């Protein structure tokens, strides 16, 4: 990393899910760990998220999902990122992700899967250790 480089993170709430307490707590924790965090608010479509990633050029995208729509939305987001040639961004999903869904999401390139009760420290370390560039 060149001098002055900051880890840049986009935190999103994809789909019809208005519960963003977790996303906000996470955004603050990452900020307090010295990262630059962009929070995009609730009800983001996959297009919103991909456009944000194109323009903001972050190192990490964190999707907070409590709605159960992860299997439907995450692959679409990954597909659109790929279409735009974005392959050096760590994409993590967290929130309520049942264990049996993880292999499917992993197959699509998603990581993380931090659920309720995860220590914020753990997520900060996860981000620092899994950067793709």
């Amino acid at each position, binding site marked *: 990393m060149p001098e*002055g*480089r900051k880890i840049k993170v986009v935190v999103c709430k994809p789909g019809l899910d208005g519960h963003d307490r977790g996303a906000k707590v996470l955004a603050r924790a990452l900020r307090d760990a010295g990262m630059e*965090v*962009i929070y*995009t608010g609730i009800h983001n479509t996959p297009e919103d998220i991909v456009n*944000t990633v194109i*323009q*903001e*050029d972050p190192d990490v995208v964190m999707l907070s999902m409590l709605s159960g729509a992860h299997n439907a939305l995450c692959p679409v987001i990954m597909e659109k990122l790929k279409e*735009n040639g974005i392959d050096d961004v760590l994409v993590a999903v967290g929130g309520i992700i049942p264990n049996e869904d993880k292999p499917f999401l992993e197959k699509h390139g998603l990581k993380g899967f931090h659920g309720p009760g995860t220590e914020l420290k753990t997520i900060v370390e996860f981000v620092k250790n899994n950067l793709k560039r």
Partner: protein
Amino acid sequence: MDYSDLIKRLLNNEPRAAARLITIVENDITAAEEIINSIYKYTGNAYILGVTGAPGSGKSTFISTLTKILVEQGKKLGIICVDPTSPLTGGALLGDRIRMKEHFTLNNLFIRSMANRGQLGGLARATEDVIKILDVYGCDIVIVETVGVGQSEVDIFKSAQTVAVLLQPEVGDDIQAIKAGIMEITDIFVVNKMDLPGVDRKVAEISQMLELESSFKYSSDDFSKEFTKIRKWTPEIVKVNSKTGENFDIFLEIVDHHKNFLKETSIIESYEKNRIKNETLQILKHKLTKKVEKLISSNSEIEKYINLVMDKSLDPYSMANLIIKLLGIE
């Protein structure tokens, strides 16, 4: 590093190339130098509009509504939102995109959030460079949203051709807060949230303040005041409602008016000269600071000077003069 491929893609208006170049100029000042060196000749087409105001005055919402109108007119827009970096952790939470959500998908719009990374003045160090990249990217207008201002975050007027300052009714303190620096750099006062009571009183307060200002406005001759001296524009006041878009047509008319004013009076030329002078000064400050820091940490003479100052046989001013001699730039 070779940036020619990215620059070629930038000239082809590729958003990813613009985004990556912005990341590079933010993080690495040496690389920024190389990149600006290659693209500078393509700059100068975008109109730069600065939007500033106290925290909570509605800057993001105002810009969001303005964006909608300008994009519908077929303009290509770049938006730079600057938010503060925590002085304790170095981290930042950038939330301006939340209020600009409805435009995420538009093609002729490029929004970029920036943390100020400790720079005072309401902008980030790299803001000038990012403006240039968005200019070359083909934006007709670049809107720069500053950090929520207090009294001295006035750097925006050195970068923007037109500066709009947002105020809101029923908040008494903001006039107090702005009368020092902000008042003198403003081209357009926007009283936002015009649906709230007290809006006309706010307009009256501003025009009163402007009358007071004009009497001493051109009397100072220090460097920073050169900017005010070349401006003989009388600031306009407009009240708007950012939620409904009411009076935005008037705001845009005033912007046009100001744009033409700058052109007709050829103020824009002296403005541009001052902008270049100031930008270069900033770069010089940065470079010289780096040089001095390097010298101080590596030169053995310095330790001797410090001891002399401790013995009181030298004072810090004289020591500074000796260091300037060492640098050879007297």
